[in-house]
């Protein structure tokens, strides 16, 4: 690869630190950028950032690597494209993935667009995924480390975006990356991985949503009997497939554990029942995004993944009326509207779409109509 002018998105974590170092080693002209995304306004002026430590770590890694470093403020775009969307999706009873949305709208859109306009050729990140050059263009593939593979959250990228994306870590394991960070003397080498949504640092999504959307209490009812078993403080505080933390006051007649199997946003009711009620074998997903050539009306063999760390399942997928329809060969338990379904051919990402409704195993009526 000839030398490129590369913007390296430096979160202040170990992965993007090593990714940046590797880009430099490959002879590219690299500028480090830390994205200021969510901002706290605890001092009433909106000048504080919730990630000051991360910004500092990123800066110190850039210092060590001897590259220019800047902070780019995308907090307004992030609030509009990611956080507002997160709130409204939950308010409408859906389960969005903000990281995926951020990749789609911020990192590989707003940031990439700015980088290209400024004369850069590509944006590099510390995501675990691989770019390969196939006969029909650039392909996005799974990382070799199945525990770290992040191709799912990159499934929203188009061919145009992938053409200008670099993922230097996808051919390595996390263990190896940490070792390398240590060998390179990067201060982020021992930094723990972040798992939380960046604007909900305490990990309490339900509490966050109650603060944002207000309490909207309602009944929790039994799927079989229709009996009221408890109360919730907002349909957005529970997720399809959730078992813990429901505080049910009436035990089940059969004593079996009960799961959230449906959310009726109209009446504000959360319905719980046996886990079998969660098994789905058909997904109707809308607004598909294709990494390369789009699928057509003829079904093809794919594997489908519906969560960042879910096992992919074999499936047949096709496009119907502009929607992505997926027949699952094995059922998936617990799938909520709003989640992204990413489909693969082997390790290659074909595309993704947003789950609109699903069919329960053995039923032909839609359980979770959006």
């Amino acid at each position, binding site marked *: 690869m000839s030398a490129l002018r590369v913007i390296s998105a430096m979160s202040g974590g170990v992965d993007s630190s090593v990714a940046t170092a590797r880009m430099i080693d490959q002879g590219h002209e690299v*500028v480090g950028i*830390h994205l*200021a995304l969510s901002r706290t306004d605890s001092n009433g002026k909106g*000048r*504080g*950032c919730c*990630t*000051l430590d991360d*910004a500092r770590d990123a800066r110190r890694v850039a210092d060590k690597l001897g590259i*220019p470093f*800047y*902070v*780019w*403020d995308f*907090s307004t*775009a992030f609030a509009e494209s990611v956080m507002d969307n997160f709130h409204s999706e939950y308010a409408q009873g859906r389960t969005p993935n903000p990281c995926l949305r951020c990749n789609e709208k911020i990192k590989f859109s*707003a940031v990439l*667009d*700015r980088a*290209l*306009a*400024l*004369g850069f050729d590509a944006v590099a990140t510390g995501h675990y995924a691989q770019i390969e050059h196939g006969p029909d263009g650039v392909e996005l593939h799974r990382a070799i480390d199945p525990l770290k593979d992040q191709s799912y959250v990159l499934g929203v990228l188009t061919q145009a975006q992938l053409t200008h994306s670099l993922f230097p870590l996808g051919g390595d394991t996390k263990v190896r990356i940490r070792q390398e960070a240590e060998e390179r003397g990067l201060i982020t080498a021992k930094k723990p991985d972040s798992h939380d949504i960046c604007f909900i640092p305490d990990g309490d999504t339900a509490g966050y949503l109650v603060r944002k959307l207000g309490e909207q209490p309602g009944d929790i009812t039994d799927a079989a009997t229709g009996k009221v078993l408890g109360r919730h403080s907002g349909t957005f505080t529970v997720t399809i497939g959730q078992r813990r933390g429901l505080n049910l006051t009436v035990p089940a007649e059969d004593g079996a554990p009960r799961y959230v199997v449906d959310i009726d946003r109209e009446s504000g009711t959360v319905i719980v029942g046996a886990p079998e009620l969660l098994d789905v074998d058909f997904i109707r997903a809308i607004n598909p995004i294709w990494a390369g050539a789009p699928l057509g009306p003829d079904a093809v063999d794919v594997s489908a993944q519906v969560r960042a760390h879910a096992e992919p399942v074999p499936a047949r997928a096709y496009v119907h009326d502009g929607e992505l329809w997926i027949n699952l060969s094995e059922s998936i338990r617990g799938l909520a509207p709003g989640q992204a379904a990413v489909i693969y051919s082997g390790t290659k990402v074909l595309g993704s779409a947003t789950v609109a409704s699903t069919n329960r195993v053995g039923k032909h009526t839609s359980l979770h109509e959006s």
Partner: protein
Amino acid sequence: MQRVYLDHAATTSMLPEARAAWLEVSEQVGNASSLHTSGRAARRVVESARESIAEDLGIRPSAVIFTGGGTESDNLAIKGLYWARCAQMGTRPLTLVTSAIEHHAVLDPVLWLVQHEAAMVEFVTGDAVGRVGLGEIESALDRGNVALVSIMWANNEIGAIQPIHEIAALCKKFNVPFHTDAVQALGQIPMNLSALDAAAVTISSHKIGGPVGVGALLVDPTVKFTPVQHGGGQEREIRSGTFDPASIAAFAAAIRYCVSVLDEHGENLRELQEYLISAITSAVPEAILNGPPPGETRLPNNTHFSFPGCEGDSLLMLLDAAGIDCSTGSACTAGIPEPSHVLLSMGVDEKTARASLRFSLGRDSSKEGIDQLAQALPGVVDRAQRAGSVSA
């Protein structure tokens, strides 16, 4: 590639005179508040520096209160005067009169008093070139209950020199203490404080070629200040804390040098300023000069431009890559650029305010450096405009 430093208003290179003074004193041991021979020797350095500064600026040595820099001096002036005036007048809250174009080191202590002590504030606005109106100050004073008036001598972003003597005379008429932040004015324009009726004047060392971390509040010794920082009782108990004789000596040496070459320095910079302005406007015809026209009402080291359609942080980054250091305005600790409150208060819209850069000249600035800027600018502006249009 030779780097071109055009951010002297942020900080400027240290003068050899200042460095020599610092190194010499740094070899001495002794706390200037100690009573023994070494302590007295350290104290001698501090007092000589105090006399030197007083002589150069036309004040009495007792008027010089050494501090840790401009921000500390401003905090001491604003809070110290406010609290002393409340105690004196036996009433609170009182009103603070200041301008919307002040540095954050003045604005934030004022807003702190508003938030925490229910102080009232009247913001005098700047006109289209960033000069504050005397009429607004007079009507604010006329309404009474004013604790103090604080108006900067010259603005740090757009270089507007304020009618400081007229404002001081107004304050005297109403018998209200007047503070001015003169951090940007010192070393750039004549500053004879004997002719100024001010209760307090803020100055800082590193803006004129002294070390960072030392400054002074020049006070009218008859005016009472409530201390902000309590401790060993140095500086007539107005500012506690161990003296830093090396930095204080270097500060005095820098002032001595700047005052001695002031006329020549001003002439040189005015010529370079003109050269810089015409270089920028020929390179980028759509560029807009913010602030007063070059001349008596503008600092000789300051130029400030808006480049319509660009983003200031993109401009800064691309110029940085082209070897040129300049600045966009105030920044938070994480380095996120905010649109300038100074430009906003002058009526500039937020988009144009974000499209702005300050180029400030210093002793080592040259026409060659300005040529390098002019050569880089058209390409840089073109790219920053494209970046501005994709993120709009």
